[in-house]
C-alpha cells in the first residue's frame, strides 16, 4: 500500500464511524440534528479523500456532475412540500439505484475480463439490484403520484414469471463469473433487473407502500454493498450495510404493523380479495349517521378529552395545519388533546409524525399504538382524519376480513367517533369498515381541511 492509499483508507474509516454516530443520533429528536451534521462531515471526508485517489485522472466530468447534482438536490429539498415526502423518498431511491447500476456497467466496460471471479459476481449483483431498485422506485413513485393506478395490477402467472426472472438472473450471474467475456449475458442481467423492478412493484397496492418503500431502501443498500465488494471499497460496504439493515428493519416493522408476512405483501397483491364492485351492494343498503359540522361541533363542545387519528387522507387534503388549529381551539377550551399515530398510517414509515411536526404539533403529544390504545375507552371524542384500515374493528373481530389480525386503534370504545371522510366509497384496499355504521359514529363527509376549518369556526361561535 502506498502512503496515499493508507490515508484514503483511514479517511474511509473515519467516515464509516461518523455514519454510525449519525444514525445513533436519530435515537431521539434532541440529538438528531447533531447526528446529521456528523453524517455530513463523514460524507465530506469520504468524497474529498476519493478525489485524491490515484485512479482519477480527469475532473471535468466529475465537476460537471457534482455541480449539476448538487443544484438539483438543493432545489428539490427546498421546494418539496412535506406532504410529498413519500414521493421524494421513492424518487431518491430511484436515483440511488440508477447510480449504482451505472457504476456497475461502467466497471464492467472498463475492466471486463480482468475482473476476478468474486468481483465479477459482485458486479453482476450490483448492476441487477441497482437497476431493479431504479425501475421499482419509479413505479412506486408513479403509484404515489397517481400517474400509475394505485390499485394492484395483476395478471395470470405473475408470481411465476417474477420468480423465474429472479432465478434466471442468478443463473446468468453464475454464467458470467465463469465466462466474463459474454457481454450479452451481462446486459441480459441488467435488462432483467430493469424488467423485474417494474413487474414486482406493479401488483402491489397503494396502502402497502410503506413496506415497498422500506424494501426498496433495503435493496438500494444491498446494491451499494455489492458495489463495495466489486470495487474492494470498505466504506461502500459499511454504508450499504447500514442502509440495507435500516430498510430491512423498517419493512419488518411495517409488515408486523399490518400483521402480514413479507411474502404476503410481495406476492399477495393486497386488495384483490374483495372487488370494490362486490363490496358496494353490501354497503349501499346500510344506514349510517351522516352529520353536519354543527352536530360534530356540539359533540366537541361537550367533550373533555379528544384524540385525533390521522391517516393518508390528512396528507391528501393537506389538513395538518387545520388539525393543529382545531386542537389549539379545543385546548383553549380546556380540552385534553392527543394524537394517535399508527405505524402504517400514510404512505411511508413516520409519514404522519413529519406532517404534524410541520404543523408545529409538539411531539410529546403524538402517541404510538401501544401507548394510547387503552385511552380510547376513557375518551369523549375521537376525530378520524382520513384514516380507514387502522381504525377498522373488523381487524379484531372478522376472521374473513383481509386485514384480520392487523393491530388497530380501539376507537369504537370512545364515547363518540367523528369520521372525516371524502365520501362513503371504500378506500384503496376496498375493505368495508364496520366502524362507519356504528351508532356512536358520526360521518362528516367532504374535504377534511374544509370540514376542520368549519369546525374551528363553529367552536369559536358557540359558548359552552
Amino acid at each position, binding site marked *: 500500500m502506498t502512503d496515499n492509499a493508507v490515508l484514503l483508507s483511514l479517511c474511509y474509516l473515519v467516515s464509516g464511524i461518523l455514519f454510525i454516530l449519525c444514525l445513533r443520533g436519530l435515537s431521539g429528536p434532541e440529538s438528531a440534528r447533531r447526528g446529521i451534521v456528523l453524517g455530513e462531515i463523514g460524507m465530506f471526508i469520504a468524497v474529498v479523500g476519493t478525489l485524491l485517489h490515484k485512479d482519477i485522472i480527469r475532473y471535468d466530468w466529475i465537476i460537471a456532475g457534482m455541480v449539476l447534482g448538487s443544484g438539483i438536490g438543493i432545489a428539490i429539498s427546498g421546494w418539496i412540500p412535506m406532504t410529498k415526502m413519500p414521493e421524494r*423518498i421513492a424518487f431518491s431511491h430511484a436515483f440511488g439505484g440508477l447510480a449504482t447500476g451505472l*457504476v456497475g456497467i461502467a466497471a464492467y466496460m472498463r475492466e471486463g475480463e480482468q475482473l476476478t471471479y468474486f468481483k465479477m459476481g459482485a458486479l453482476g449483483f450490483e448492476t441487477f439490484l441497482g437497476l431493479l431498485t431504479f425501475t421499482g422506485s419509479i413505479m412506486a413513485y408513479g403509484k404515489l403520484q397517481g400517474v400509475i393506478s394505485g390499485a394492484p395490477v395483476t395478471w395470470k402467472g405473475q408470481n411465476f414469471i417474477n420468480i423465474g426472472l429472479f432465478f434466471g438472473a442468478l443463473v446468468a450471474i453464475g454464467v458470467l463469473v465463469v465466462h466474463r467475456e459474454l457481454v450479452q449475458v451481462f446486459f441480459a442481467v441488467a435488462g432483467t433487473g430493469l424488467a423485474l423492478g417494474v413487474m414486482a412493484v406493479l401488483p402491489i397496492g397503494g396502502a402497502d407502500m410503506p413496506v415497498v418503500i422500506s424494501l426498496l431502501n433495503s435493496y438500494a443498500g444491498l446494491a451499494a454493498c455489492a458495489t463495495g465488494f466489486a470495487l474492494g471499497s470498505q466504506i461502500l460496504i459499511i454504508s450499504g450495510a447500514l442502509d440495507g439493515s435500516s430498510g430491512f428493519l423498517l419493512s419488518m416493522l411495517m409488515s408486523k404493523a399490518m400483521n402480514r408476512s413479507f411474502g404476503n405483501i410481495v406476492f399477495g397483491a393486497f386488495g384483490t380479495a374483495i372487488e370494490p364492485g362486490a363490496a358496494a351492494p353490501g354497503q349501499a343498503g346500510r344506514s349510517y349517521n351522516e352529520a353536519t359540522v354543527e352536530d360534530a361541533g356540539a359533540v366537541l363542545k361537550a367533550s373533555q378529552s379528544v384524540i385525533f387519528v390521522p391517516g393518508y387522507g390528512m396528507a391528501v387534503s393537506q389538513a395538518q395545519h387545520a388539525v393543529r388549529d382545531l386542537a389549539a381551539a379545543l385546548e383553549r377550551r380546556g380540552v385534553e388533546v392527543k394524537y394517535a399515530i399508527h405505524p402504517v398510517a400514510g404512505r411511508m414509515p413516520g409519514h404522519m409524525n413529519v406532517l404534524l411536526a410541520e404543523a408545529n404539533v409538539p411531539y410529546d403529544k403524538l402517541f404510538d399504538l401501544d401507548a394510547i390504545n387503552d385511552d380510547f375507552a376513557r375518551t369523549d371524542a375521537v376525530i378520524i382524519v382520513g384514516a380507514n384500515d387502522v381504525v377498522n374493528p373488523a381487524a379484531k373481530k372478522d376472521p374473513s376480513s383481509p386485514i384480520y389480525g392487523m393491530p388497530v386503534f380501539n376507537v369504537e370504545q370512545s364515547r363518540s367517533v367523528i369520521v372525516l371522510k371524502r365520501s362513503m366509497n371504500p378506500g384503496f384496499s376496498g375493505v368495508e369498515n364496520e366502524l362507519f355504521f356504528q351508532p356512536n359514529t358520526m360521518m362528516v363527509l367532504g374535504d377534511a381541511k374544509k370540514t376542520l376549518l368549519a369546525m374551528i369556526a363553529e367552536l369559536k361561535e358557540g359558548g359552552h
Partner: protein
Amino acid sequence: MTSDWIFNLYVFALATFVGYQVISRVPPLLHTPLMSGTNAISGISLVASLLAAGSDHFISQVLGFVAVTCASINVVGGFLITDRMLRMFRKKPAPAAKQEKAS
C-alpha cells in the same frame, strides 16, 4: 486474492450487525428522517461514481457522469431535507404558534 473478500465479508457482517442495533433504537417518531438520512448516506455510491467518471475510458466517463449527478442529488438533497424535517420536531409549540394563541 481470497483473503481480500473474506476481509470484506467481515466488514459487511459487522456493519450490518451494528446497523441493526443502532437503528432498532430509532423511535417511530423519526422513521421518515431515518429513511431520508440513510438515503443520504447511501449516496456514498458517489465515491464509486467518482472513480467511474474520472477514469480514462470514455463510456465509463459518460455513465459515471450520470451516476455522479444522481448520487450528488441524493447526498446534497438527502442531508438538506433531513435537516429541514428535524428542525420541525419540537417539544414545545414554536413561538409562531404562541402568537396565534395570543391573538
